[in-house]
């Protein structure tokens, strides 16, 4: 038993040519393929991460806007969801400065080769 508000879905009507979906699909596949290519570029981890992450955001954007049809939802909803999600995901990044210190400020004996390899052998 669900008491919905019986709202009509006022999003853009369905129907018409499914070609848009195919286009998005190929777009995502291409972006994903690029991710794999970047993995084998000779760049450092940070650069690779940023490139792949940017592609992932693009893919996610395509997914959200077209497959999940966020683009067809009304403006207040899009605004609300964007603010809430981005706020949380952004603020979550504030732990990074401490991540960099993990290595820099580790006790000297932890920095020897083979350190943090698990249970002491």
């Amino acid at each position, binding site marked *: 038993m669900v008491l919905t508000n019986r709202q009509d879905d006022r999003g853009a009507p369905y129907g018409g040519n499914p070609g848009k979906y195919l286009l998005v699909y190929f777009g995502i596949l291409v972006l994903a393929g690029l991710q794999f290519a970047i993995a084998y570029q000779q760049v450092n981890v940070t650069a690779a991460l940023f490139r792949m992450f940017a592609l992932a955001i693009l893919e996610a954007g395509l997914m959200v806007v077209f497959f999940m049809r966020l683009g067809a939802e009304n403006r207040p909803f899009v605004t609300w969801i964007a603010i809430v999600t981005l706020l949380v995901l952004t603020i979550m990044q504030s732990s990074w400065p401490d991540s960099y210190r993990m290595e820099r400020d580790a006790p000297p004996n932890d920095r020897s080769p083979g350190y943090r390899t698990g249970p*002491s052998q």
Partner: protein
Amino acid sequence: MGKVFAATLIVIALASAMPIILHTWEPPADISTHGRLIDEQMSETMAEAGVAFLAAQLILAWLVWRFSNRPKNEKIQHFPGGARGLVAAAVLVVGIEVMALGIFGAKAWAAIYFTPPSANALPIQAQAGQFAFYFRYPGADGKFGPIHPEMVNEGNLNFFGLDTTHDADSKDDIVTAELAVPVNREIHLLMHSKDVGHSFFIRELRIQQDFVPGLDLAVHFTATKPGKYEILCTQLCGLGHYNMKAYLKVMSQSDFDNWLKQKAALQ
């Protein structure tokens, strides 16, 4: 009943402010070079907070006294200026005041954490473990020997896990259970945790910093007054947490040299 509430609130507000005004319970006098900034910031904040506290409580009391249980035929009046004035007051007076307090107060923090220790600061390593502090002085060579965690053995009094047979740097390291420092000399305290989180708190030095397992943090300070002060653990570390303490002894340079010699002889 409204008047009783008002009267009670006034009594509570004044009684709450009394110990602050009379300085009944105060932190002990500062013995550090950096503590003055903290103390000044504390008094400024206390002045602001105290005024805000008393104003809010007394106005609340007065309004309840004046406007509770009025006769039926009296009219509702409106606050002059309405909400707009109050919102402006909150933003412009209280908001800016508090933000300014925080922004200018940051310099006390910066003085401690954003400035590196001077080159001739005396390095001492502090190690926290369940439930005791140990301190290590580098000895004549000025170098700390490496720590071997697998060699830590409290029964053998090898608190730091030093390997004095193999490591040349460890041989002259002096390990003590109390922290002795020369007066007016900057100390560079390297903090190492052996097991779980602990903290290093000396009220007189205006220093509190956690020991973080896996991170060797450091603080630096200069003690200006000889004496014996308590070092407390303030980060919950287990059942003996309440009993985890050590002493800071601030002494003259010559006393300190003798003390260090004595301790070295015991190693």
